[in-house]
């Protein structure tokens, strides 16, 4: 029951949601509330449990423990009702390559039991929304990665869902296409559809999300608005570029009391400190003692990436980014592989 003073209700509610595969605990007693009408970002490194959580919420996986409702219906007992009310864009590209864009949408409308006349109108509308009307008669095999994604977004919206699930919507897309896809996602929000999105791209979360939960090892380790999470960091981020043994420099800085966190990446040291003005001279001195020749010191606006490093001690993308499965998924997306059916 939502409190009586609240205008909006929760489109997703989860309590102690858990999924284990044998001995591996993929999702560990997750509690989640997602308000209606927002873009909710579910962030975490690869293998954190994002997709497993989505698969439970869309009724493709049965939770081992705990319960959840989506659009007011229980994901286990009322799976059919949940399915009728949600739209999904999966991580991998799931289109029939040898059907046209229009036919792909028509098959979806039929499976969801939409009346033909309604379906025809909706398909036209959504093809306009994702700007694919002109290419609707082409086989999907001829589409680019961005076009495929847009068609999938259109498909996810076809049955007028109350909530759209987007699992890594821009994985493997080039920067320009990603920005384009973001635009469509924001347009979807304007239509009043709630969005639940997983991503391991920090910029994506910052650009799109109203609320964020960070998940690691199957547990939520932080949640809030992007701004509040960054503020919660309680400090400044200093980036130092230099030539020398960065690993050793990192160790040395870690021993300094005023340094809250330090990481190495892309030939630079990234430090979180409470007061940059006072810290910078100390950092410079410490690094010179370690024999590092400093090229530049810059003060950065902290972002979600820093929040993540602060919370987990590692970068979002450094782990598992090159796992074979991930590469397989990306290659599939890029090539639009499908073959004959």
């Amino acid at each position, binding site marked *: 029951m939502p409190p009586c003073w609240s205008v909006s209700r929760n489109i997703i509610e989860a309590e102690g949601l858990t999924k284990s595969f044998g001995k591996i605990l993929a999702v560990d007693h997750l509690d989640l509330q997602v308000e209606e009408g927002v873009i909710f970002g579910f962030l975490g490194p690869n293998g954190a449990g994002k997709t497993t959580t989505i*698969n439970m919420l*869309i*009724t*493709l*996986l049965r939770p081992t423990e705990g319960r959840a409702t989506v659009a007011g219906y229980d994901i286990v007992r009322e799976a*059919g009702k949940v*399915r*009728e009310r949600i739209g*999904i864009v*999966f991580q*991998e*590209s*799931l*289109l*029939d*390559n*040898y*059907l046209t864009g229009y*036919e792909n949408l028509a*098959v*979806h409308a*039929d*499976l*969801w*039991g939409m009346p033909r006349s309604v379906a025809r109108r909706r398909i036209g509308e959504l093809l306009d929304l994702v700007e694919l009307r002109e290419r609707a008669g082409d086989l999907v095999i001829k589409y680019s990665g961005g076009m495929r994604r847009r068609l999938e977004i259109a498909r996810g919206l076809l049955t007028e869902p109350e909530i759209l699930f987007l699992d890594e919507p821009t994985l493997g897309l080039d920067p320009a296409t990603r920005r384009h896809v973001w635009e469509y996602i924001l347009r979807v929000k304007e239509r009043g559809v709630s969005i639940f999105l997983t991503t391991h791209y920090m910029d994506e979360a910052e650009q799109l999300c109203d609320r964020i939960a960070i998940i690691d090892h199957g547990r939520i380790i932080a949640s809030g608005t992007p701004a509040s999470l960054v503020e919660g960091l309680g400090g400044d981020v200093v980036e130092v570029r230099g030539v020398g043994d960065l690993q050793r420099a990192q160790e040395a800085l870690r021993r300094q009391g005023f340094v809250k966190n330090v990481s190495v990446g892309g030939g630079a040291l990234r430090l979180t400190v409470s007061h940059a003005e006072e810290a910078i001279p100390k950092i410079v001195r410490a690094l010179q003692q370690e024999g590092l020749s400093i090229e530049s010191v810059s003060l950065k606006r902290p972002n979600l990436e820093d929040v993540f490093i602060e919370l987990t001690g590692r970068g979002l993308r450094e782990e598992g980014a090159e796992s074979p499965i991930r590469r397989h998924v990306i290659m*599939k997306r890029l090539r639009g*592989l*499908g*073959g*004959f*059916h």
Partner: protein
Amino acid sequence: MTGFVRAVTTLYWRRIRLSFRNRAMMFVRLFQPLFWLVVLGTTFNNMFAAARGLPLQVDYLSFVAVGVMTMTVVFTSLFAGMSLVWDREFGVLKEFLAAPIPRPSIPVGNALAAATEGILQSLIILGLSLPVGARLLLTPSSLLVYIAVSFLLSVTLYGIAASVASRLTTTQSFMAVMNLLAMPLFFISGAIYPIQFLPGGLREFATVSPVTHAVALIRYHMLGPASSNLDVVWGVLGLTPAWLEAQLSLAYLAAVSLASLAVASLMFRGVSI
């Protein structure tokens, strides 16, 4: 129920569209049965003519034409299960698994599409066997029985293929299993020689194989009761009139096809992503 029917029709038309867009593959599939018919059929025909002939009051070419027509159905149906593995490997299956439809509509819709394809391919072989020299009795009723029998056989084999496909995730493993199935079904069925020449053990296997019953039934109607070999097929149970044997074979095929489809539906209920 309406939801089930609608899902089945949707998945049926999707599969038919995809198959017919890939016409090259359909022609490739026709080559093998055609090869059997022309090369094996005419060679053995000459051989049997030089010797004492077949013990079934029919020339070998007509005999084997029915066998090859049936084999076309067998191969098309078994390998049609491949498309399910493709759907799974390339993800589209997930879209169907997430849809608010009864799970069994997935194997059923695709089975109907496989049967359509198998029957069409087989009809082409039938048409081509005539100029090669096969003499078949073509009447509305014999054609109707032939199509019905081909349909039941196709559903049976597609059910097996779909059950296998529901548990295998790679095309390679699926192909390996199908080859393992296709060969014995082909050679131990009476399709290319009468089963009385099979050694003991294999002959018993042949009498329970749905392929044997399908071939015998089509021969019964297209070559005549004396050439059907049904008495050998049902011989184990003692002598019955030929027409009753034909009815029994038809009932047997219907039962097996229903059972096969039921198993496939059950297997699909358990499919997870």
